[in-house]
């Protein structure tokens, strides 16, 4: 083989993977990168989208949203909503997964519970929002039951009171999201070799010691991966909050997604909405990089 042929062959080998990847790269570029870059561009323009000749605004829109107390309230609500959701998704998911993996529960009952526990996952965000609005409305079932049990003395406006609204939407989101953890952890539990537990039994380990020293360490890769993904997804939740409270009452459930939506479609300030969207993008990007680093380290 001549030198020229060899170099041609090497070039072909080097280019071939990119050619195989090109359809996916093209789709990613068109559907993800292009809109992302466009939105970043809008955040530096005055009257973005609304004017055909928008002028350069520099960091003006970022300064405007950072000076807005509602933005900081939204950021705080987003963090509260996300952290509480992830912690409770994980805790409830773990408890239910352990329950479904336990030999002490009758297999028939286990199968029934498996179906029941996974139900919230089958509903769309809109259905979940409507269900919880009906349940938690002042004249709804929850108030009625709590009043009959003597837990509350008068009707609580769960979604309409600034004191309870954020907790109420977080609760609805916890209910909607734990099955992801449950299913993932159940799969992980079924993959832990039984030898570990047998060895622990021989050593006289108690149930909680087996949980702390065997089960949780074995599940840790799944817990971290799913927690990071859940954090990213929950941070961007929009329909559940929009349909239940619309970001209110006052601004008590305003999160970054509803704040951005209102800027875009209520104020028609698409430049500031883009700046807010870029902030969400940066936070999500940070978490995604963390996730990728963790996956690589494994």
């Amino acid at each position, binding site marked *: 083989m001549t030198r020229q042929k060899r170099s041609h062959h090497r070039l072909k080998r080097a280019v071939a993977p990119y050619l195989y990847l090109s359809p996916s790269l093209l789709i990613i570029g068109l559907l993800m990168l292009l809109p992302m870059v466009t939105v970043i561009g809008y955040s530096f323009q005055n009257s973005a989208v*609304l004017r*055909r000749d928008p002028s350069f605004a520099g960091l003006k829109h970022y300064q405007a949203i950072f000076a807005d107390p509602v933005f900081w309230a939204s950021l705080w609500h987003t963090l509260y909503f996300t952290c509480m959701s992830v912690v409770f998704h994980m805790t409830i998911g773990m408890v239910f997964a352990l329950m479904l993996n336990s030999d002490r529960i009758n297999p028939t009952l286990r199968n029934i519970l498996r179906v029941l526990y996974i139900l919230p996952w089958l509903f769309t965000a809109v259905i979940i929002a409507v269900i919880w609005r009906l349940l938690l409305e002042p004249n709804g079932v929850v108030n009625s039951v709590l009043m009959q049990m003597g837990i509350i003395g008068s009707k609580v406006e769960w979604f309409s009171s600034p004191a309870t609204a954020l907790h109420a939407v977080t609760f609805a989101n916890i209910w909607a999201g734990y099955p992801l953890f449950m299913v993932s952890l159940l799969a992980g539990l079924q993959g832990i070799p039984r030898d570990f537990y047998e060895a622990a039994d021989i050593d006289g380990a108690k149930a909680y010691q087996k949980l702390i020293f065997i089960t949780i360490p074995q599940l840790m890769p799944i817990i971290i991966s799913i927690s990071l993904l859940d954090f990213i997804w929950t941070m961007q939740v929009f329909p559940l909050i929009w349909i239940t409270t*619309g970001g*209110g009452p006052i601004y008590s459930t305003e999160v970054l997604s509803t704040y951005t939506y*209102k800027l875009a479609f*209520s*104020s028609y300030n698409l430049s500031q909405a883009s700046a807010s969207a870029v902030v969400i993008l940066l936070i999500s990007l940070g978490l995604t990089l963390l996730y990728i680093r963790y996956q690589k380290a494994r």
Partner: protein
Amino acid sequence: MMFRIQPAMLKIAAAAWLLGATGAMADTTLEFTQWWEPELPAGSLKAIMNDFEAANPGIKVTLVSGPYATTRDQISVGAATGTLSDVVGLDGAWVNNLNAQNALADMNPMMDASGFDKTQVADIIKVDGKAVMFPVASFVYPVFVNMDLAAQAGVTKLPSTRAEFLEAAKKMTHADKNQYGWVLPLSLQTPSGVQNDLMSWVWASGQSMMADGKPALEGKPVVDMLTFVKSLNDAGVISPGIATKTEQEKVEEFVNDRVGMMIDSLAHVNLIRERNPKLNFDLIPVPVVENYNGKRGLPYASWGIGISAASKHQEEAWKLVQYLMSEKVNAKLVSLANAFPGNVNAKPDFVTSDKAFAKAFEIYKTGYLANEFTGLPVAEDLMTKFDVEAQKMLAGEQSPEQAAANAQKGWMAKF
């Protein structure tokens, strides 16, 4: 049998093709974007367009229809990119923004050139002196009263003033039975409750939330209205869940005998009857302040129409607008929509055939249409800002005066 093509047949075919081709080339196709078609009986708007095409040979109309919110977003983007349809369905709340983008044509020259009789239209929405929108159909917002609940509560005379309304609402309220006198939807998801359920009290008494084209929320009319609403809330006559209640939920509560009175669109009459055929209700105008005897402002929402400034067929587009605003066609359209006409001479058929509509038409004729949000910049944003301050007031965080002052501050930033 062999089929032979005769030269004469060829000639006829060629002539037919030529006629068709030139005819097609001569046709002007108008694009008409609106949200009305899905809200009208199936095929009815298309039938009106077919009649228009028959009356105006050479003009074709393509309907671009979608739900209200989608249409709004589509029009915003179309205005920015210069791709707005020739004729557009408009909400009064949008026109200021669209005008700022120079997206709407001034219909004044078209009216003058065609000798259009301006006295036949109920209103012409103007921004910066430009005639940008005609209300084609108006949906008024009277007070719906559950007559059975009123009778049970001993309300024999339906309220005409705010004080009477408070008294009637108190009588109709039985919180232990989940029954309340009034319902107020102030969800931030759709802040139109500010326009329909709050400001309507101001307009009903012939008052205004504006002064010299600027917000005047700290003035007596708005502060008095907020004080009145606070007194209703303090009296416990408003159905709970105000801050997240939507218009649909308001109607549901009324339909299910859970509230005695609500301010609502006349467009919901048929829906209410469908949901609860046994419901015995009547319509009254929005009550007024004490000793007010003038004409009552009647809140309304409208299907407006305008022409794109970028349209290459403005002459044809104007023909379509004129057609829809003409007496007979307008009457036909509003009869289908259960709305009140944009042409003052048009008389919809439901007015004579239906008691509730007849009553509403009477209220409409004795009052005047009032919606000061029409033509304001970012009207929905203004409603949201007012909504938040009203919610704070109802939560006991501030007084009506403070709510009005804070809302004024928020609004001024937008003007």
